[in-house]
């Protein structure tokens, strides 16, 4: 394995030690951090833009919309009914007065006059039938302030009139029947008496009759009113009546008239379209106690999909926040909202309510919670999974390449990733250059070492020769000192030794090329101060290592200087340098 690859591999290996995070872990962590930040931004954005589903607010909004539509339906309908009632009052008043004028009767003359009443009813029946078919209602009535028999015990509360009714269900077959009035007259008009028919009204069940009879001075547009929900005597039908007074031109109170909204009709007519399941709509007189509503006091209806279940009894309400109220008292707990509505100036406000089953609300809340938890869990799992997958996917070729580096002797790996491919190429080139450099250095080192060895051998030999000469000189001097007589002989021997040294220098001189020696001598002058210094160290007997240590440079630097010195002196080895130097010194010594 080459050195660079090893270095990279070791670096990676070091990074995967337990004490440090691996590339995978590090990248995964960064990606997770990124995902968390994105999720945080998303949550913040959703929160700031109010995009989070809030079940309480959503429920309130949905119910509020329902109650507004319901309120508009009721307001429009009752307004229309009131207008039609006022028109009916005017029409009937006109017909009654026309009849009285035609028969030269006063209104009071109708009392105990069954024939005249029957004729009058016959006159009124067809316009009433027409009006009934035109209006959205379940019944129509005209109640005259007179009776066919004033001698009866109950005459004070018995008043004649006509009361026509349908059963209130939406059906292609919905016959009109006579609830009150002359049965013979109605049969002549193909109207059958109701099975619970009676001839006259019992006004003791209709206090509005007495009230309206006392306000004849006011215009009928100011005095009309609606009854509370009432049960028609001898039946189980619960109805609400519009009461419009009929005032003659002379101010005589003729009676009241109006339309009927029955419980069945209300439930059929007001069934509301909605996307919320199982809603119940309430229309009630305003409760005397704020926190309780009596369901039996008013009407209710369901939705157009067919759901309708009227709560039973009295419900108590508790605020639940966000404008919602819980209602208890029925077998089913409800959640809903209420509102108020005014239908006429002579009736107190009515309460409207829209109730949903608490179970539906709880279910929706649970579903929403589960949905949210699931959504965020899926997002989180997807984020973790994606981070894991992509970090693996991203690092896998890198780690694979590193593994290649680890297993291969030379960088011949290949990668599809341009950056890694470039890295491989770079490492390969570095390897190649390094190999070349190392080869050159090894060769130089080998050459230098062999030269050094050779020079050292020669130097040692010269040294030995020099030391031998010195010893001989010392012996000669010793001999000179020992004996006077032997002075001459000693002097002779000294001279002989001198001669021997001269001979030796001469012999060396004879080995040297004169031209090369001259170039050597000339080249010394061209040496740089550093080269001259190194040259002198060589002359002093130091080797390359010692010189490098002496001048605090690398050996390679000394070798480099050597090259220059050799080049300038025209020599090619240290041995040659030392040989020429020795000759140069000998000549300098000879010249004195």
């Amino acid at each position, binding site marked *: 394995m080459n050195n660079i690859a090893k270095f990279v591999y070791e670096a990676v290996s070091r990074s995967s030690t337990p004490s440090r995070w691996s590339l995978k872990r590090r990248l995964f962590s960064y990606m997770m951090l990124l995902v968390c930040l994105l999720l945080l931004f998303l949550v913040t954005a959703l929160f700031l833009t109010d995009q989070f589903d809030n079940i309480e607010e959503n429920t309130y909004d949905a119910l509020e919309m329902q109650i507004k539509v319901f309120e508009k339906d009721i307001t429009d309908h009752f307004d229309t009914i009131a207008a039609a009632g006022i028109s009916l009052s005017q029409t009937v008043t006109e017909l009654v007065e026309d009849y009285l004028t035609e028969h030269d009767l006063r209104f009071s003359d109708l009392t105990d006059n*069954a024939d005249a009443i029957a004729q009058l009813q016959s006159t009124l029946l067809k316009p009433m039938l027409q009006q009934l078919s035109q209006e959205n209602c379940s019944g129509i009535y005209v109640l005259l302030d007179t*009776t*066919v*028999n004033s001698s*009866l015990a109950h005459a004070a509360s*018995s008043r004649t009139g006509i009361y026509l009714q349908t*059963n209130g*269900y*939406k*059906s*292609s*077959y919905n016959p009109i*029947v006579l609830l009150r009035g*002359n*049965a*013979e007259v109605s*049969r002549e008009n193909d109207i*059958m*008496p*109701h*099975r*619970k*028919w*009676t*001839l*006259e009204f019992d006004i003791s069940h209709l206090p509005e009759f007495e009230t309206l009879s006392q306000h004849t001075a006011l215009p009928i547009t100011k005095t009309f009113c609606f009854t509370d929900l009432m049960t028609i005597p*001898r*039946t*189980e*039908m619960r109805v609400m009546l519009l009461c419009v007074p009929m005032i003659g031109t002379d101010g005589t109170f003729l009676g009241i008239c109006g339309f009927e909204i029955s419980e*069945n009709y209300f439930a*059929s007519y007001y069934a509301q379209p909605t996307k919320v*399941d*199982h809603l119940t709509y309430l229309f009630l007189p305003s409760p005397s106690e704020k926190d309780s509503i009596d369901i039996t006091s008013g009407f209710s209806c*369901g939705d157009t*999909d*067919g*759901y*309708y*279940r*009227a709560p*039973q009894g009295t419900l108590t309400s508790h605020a639940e926040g966000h404008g919602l109220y819980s209602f208890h008292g029925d*077998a*089913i707990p409800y959640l809903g909202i209420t509102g108020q509505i005014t239908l006429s100036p002579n009736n107190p406000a009515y309460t409207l309510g829209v109730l949903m089953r608490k*179970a*539906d609300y709880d*279910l929706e809340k649970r579903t929403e919670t589960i949905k949210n938890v699931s959504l965020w869990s899926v997002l989180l799992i997807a984020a973790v999974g994606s981070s894991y997958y992509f970090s693996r996917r991203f690092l896998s070729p890198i780690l694979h390449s590193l593994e290649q580096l680890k297993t291969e002797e030379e960088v011949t790996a290949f990668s599809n990733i341009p950056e890694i491919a470039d890295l491989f190429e770079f490492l390969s080139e570095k390897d190649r250059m390094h190999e070349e450099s190392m080869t050159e250095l090894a060769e130089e080192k080998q050459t230098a070492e062999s030269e050094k060895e050779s020079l050292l051998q020669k130097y040692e030999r010269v040294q030995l020769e020099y030391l031998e000469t010195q010893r001989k000189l010392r012996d000669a001097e010793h001999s000179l000192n020992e004996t006077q007589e032997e002075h001459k002989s000693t002097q002779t021997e000294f001279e002989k030794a001198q001669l021997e040294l001269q001979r030796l220098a001469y012999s060396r001189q004879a080995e040297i090329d004169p031209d090369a020696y001259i170039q050597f001598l000339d080249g010394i002058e061209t040496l740089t101060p550093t080269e001259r210094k190194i040259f002198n160290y060589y002359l002093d007997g130091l080797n390359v290592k010692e010189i490098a240590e002496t001048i605090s440079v690398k050996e390679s630097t000394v070798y480099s200087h050597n090259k220059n010195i050799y080049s300038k002196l025209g020599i090619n080895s240290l041995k040659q340098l030392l040989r020429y130097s020795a000759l140069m010194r000998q000549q300098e010594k000879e010249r004195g």
Partner: protein
Amino acid sequence: MQKLLTLLLSLLLLTSLVGCLAGCGEQTTLDPNNPVTLSFWHVYGEQADAPMNRLVAEFNASVGLEKGIVVNVTNVTNTSKIGGQLKSAMDGEPGAPEMPDIFSSHTSHAGLLGAENLVDWNTWFTEKELKKYVPEFVESGMTDAGLSIFPLSKSSYALFLNGTQFARFSADTGVTYDDLATWEGFFAAAAKYYEWSGGKTFCAMDYLIRHVELDLQSKKGSPFFLDDGWFDFDDSAVYDSWMMFAEPLSKGHIAVSEQYSNTHVTTGEMLCGIGSTASITYFSDTVTYPDNTTEPMDLHILPLPMSGSEIEYIPQSGVGIASYQTTEQKAEAASVFVRWLTEGKRNLDFAVQTGYMPVCTDAYQEIKSYEYPNDAYASLFDAIFTMREKYTAVSRPDFDGYYAKTNTLYDGLRQMQGALADRADAGEDAKTLAEETWEFFKSIE
């Protein structure tokens, strides 16, 4: 260790098996948290919102609440009209309401709507459960597609009298209730009443043609209808039976009711009426006369007058409950409602309150000791039991178009009867006048 593992595995298997069996036994499409709504058309209390609506409210507040069913009454009509309304709804005619999920129905309506479009109650009731109902009532609801009409209640006809006025009439003429046991005595009493009252009709009859049919059957002893369900006018027996009723009608002694006979009695216009036993709920406690005077009704209810033949017949009618095929959930919900509605005690209470005969066999055990709401109900059920003991109850076979023909007949007779009575009073021969009605009768095809 191995033993422990085996034991644990066995326990796990056993728990799974028990859980599966328990779950399989309780499989239901109903969910109390998401109730299913059933729209319901019925014929009980068309003009008074009487007992059926109360039962529906009771169901919604109890079993309906527990199981997740809401029954919503969206139409209350009558037996002669409901078939046409259902057909209009099913055909989606303009202005027709939505087809109901459950409805009162004759067996003939199954043919009209297509029995295959109706739920087969056999799917939802076990044989053991069906054995709790009077077999002939269950049988009457069978069609080619199975048990399409589930029995709920059965009615017959009875004679309803204004007891207060009859007492005065009886005191003056010597006519008694016993005289009204046969048609002969009944028509004689009617003639006397006409004379006694100064020309007032004695009795209003809701379903005149059924009395002709029953008289005919008692005389012939066998079914007499042609293939189309109408009469063989070449048969002299048909003529005889028709004329038996047509002559008193032509004289003004009896009349076809304008719609329901009870209104004629309630207005004091006629002394008595013959109609469904179920009409008891519509009789008033008082009679109101044109001068607004009133008197107690003192309603007396007698068995139908008979022809005096060896075998006598009484009509048996009454609709059952059918369910329109939509979803399995609605079919299951309908079966829960019908099962609840026809449970013994509840069926008895409903039958008594509405003047019907119950359909549960258990109810017949208890009805004799039943505490009736008032004397009128007691006399009604006395009359019902007398008739069931003495006579044979027969249902008229259902034929398509039968009600249209009878309505045409009644409408024609209503238009004719006043003039015929005036002409009879003027001295014209009653038989000749009656034959005019015969000709009219024959003209209906």
